[in-house]
């Protein structure tokens, strides 16, 4: 069977995707930091970010997206894992049980009184792992036509 390939016109999709990508991306960052004391966090944020990238993949194609974001997602996953484990393992060196978190309040310029928590570093690791794994899967399936 011969398939006649029509030239698809996704101008609107491509144009929208460019804008919506940033909206989703910034929203995912907001969700990531909201996870500090309220619902949200690295996992949801990571999924949102990867969905933003997937939107780009749908609007353009894998090759273009790889040119825009030249990231090796396997390494990204590994970095995230190391970051998460290192945060969890750090208390070993100060004689506390594994996974003990530390937090304190700081007066930062611009932000005012802010609470900083090592759990955020762990969450950043989770974020990287989720984005890395999801994108690896999408690339594996999407690579061959």
């Amino acid at each position, binding site marked *: 069977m011969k398939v006649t390939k029509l030239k698809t016109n996704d101008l609107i999709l491509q144009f929208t995707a460019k804008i919506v990508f940033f909206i989703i991306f910034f929203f995912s960052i907001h969700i990531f930091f909201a996870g500090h004391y309220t619902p949200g966090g690295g996992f949801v944020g990571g999924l949102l970010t990867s969905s933003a990238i997937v939107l780009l993949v749908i609007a353009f194609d894998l090759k273009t997206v790889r040119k825009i974001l030249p990231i090796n997602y*396997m*390494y990204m*996953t*590994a970095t995230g*894992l*190391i970051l998460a*484990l290192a945060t969890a*393992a750090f*208390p*070993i060196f100060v*004689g*506390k*049980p*594994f*996974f*003990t*978190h530390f937090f304190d309040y700081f007066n930062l310029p611009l932000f005012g009184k802010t609470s900083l928590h090592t759990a955020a570093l762990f969450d950043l690791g989770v974020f990287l792992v989720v984005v890395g794994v999801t994108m690896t899967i999408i690339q594996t399936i999407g690579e061959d036509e």
Partner: protein
Amino acid sequence: MINFLLFPILITFFTGMILIFFQKNIYLQRTISLISLGVATICALFVMLKVQRDGIQSVTFGDWPAPYGITMVADGVSTLLVLTSLLLTFFITWYSFGSIGKEREHFFYYPGVMFILTGVNGAFTTGDIFNMFVFFEVLLMSSYLLIVLGGEKKQLRESIQYILVNIISSALFVITVAYLYSIIGTLSMADIAMKITAINQPGIITTIAVLFLMVFGLKAAIFPLYFWLPSSYAAPPIPVLALFGALLTKVGVYAIMRTYTLFFVHDIAFTHQMLLIFAVLTIIAGCIGALAHFDVKQIIIYNIVIAVGVILFGVAQMNFDGLEGAMFYLVHDMIIKAALFMLVGIIVYITGTSDLRKMGGLMRKYPSLGWFYLIAAFGLAGIPPLSGFVGKLLIVQGGFAAGNTWSSIFILASSLIVLLSVIRIFLYAFWGEEGQTVQIQEKTYKQLYYPTVILVVISIAYGVGSEWVTPFMDSAARVLTNPSIYIEAVMKGAQP
């Protein structure tokens, strides 16, 4: 150093992550994984000695008090198993240099091994029932990776079955934990053991015991639930098979052992009798399979099933001798199964086939391999003074003490069938007319031969030197027979 007991787990986990960055450089991957396995083994040895000297070690994550945080517990049982699995993986990794193939090495074989080891050791060490589920998933995910690695048609076909079985068993695990939580209201294993008697609802607890037997039985391959094991394990290459055969089913056995000595001790007449019946049926099923096949891999794979039955028979006795024998036999079986799979792998490599009927006469060319195989086979069957003997003796002694005379005699008789099934490989492959061989490289043969031989020597040492191992086994069996030691040690760790 309160965190010292975590080192064997953390080192392998960390190495796995590091190795992902060196995907292209095989030699660096090999060196790093061997060194870190060596270091982790030494750490595990020190943890074991420390536990033997100072009693059970425990650490609760995040500085929470004990029943609220996730506790990791190193007692006699877990440290022995952690040390054994690290030691075996060291030799299996060395063995895979010559046999796994460059393509797989490029594609995250070594990280897979490291992560599977993290999962296995974590499952051995954890003191929290849901955390055990998480570590089970860690080891299962890496086993999924290892079983499909290479992407041959047979691997793809069999791995789908393997993964589906494990997904369903994981769902059952979650459901069972949910039931347990709804009744007891806690997830820490020591806390559960403490509260389970106070709650006094024997009926529902027995139901949960049966559900746990199903969940862990699927992983440990006991009688009605072993159907997936022979075909799935035959698919991946030999080093992966050795790793799976030595470690994966044993995690299930350990979980049954732990839950049935710690939680479900209120209705032994029903639960442990059931365990005993399933153990005997498992041995029968395994024996039939081991005798029926002419494929060397299948013969040893069915011997895994037999060994699981023997160990669970020891657990079902619920007395000191039976449990000490089960521990002895568990460690013995991990070592000897890895050694046998590695030996069989060499035979398959030399002959180019896994069909016994096409082999023969290897004794003339490879005499030392033949003798080492014979020693390993005798060790598996439990001929004194080799390693299987002490464990089986104690298990049978425990069986007699518990009044299960006939089934104990049956266990003894089954050793003869085990011996027959592995001696068949010796007769077909090493004696008789010379069969087919393929051209092999001397260097690769050496790479396979040395780790295998050292492992066989370790198993001999384990059997002959069982006198020195006994104190460790004693302390393991003491924890198993007397759960209050475990509970007190964990709860005491709560208030420093």
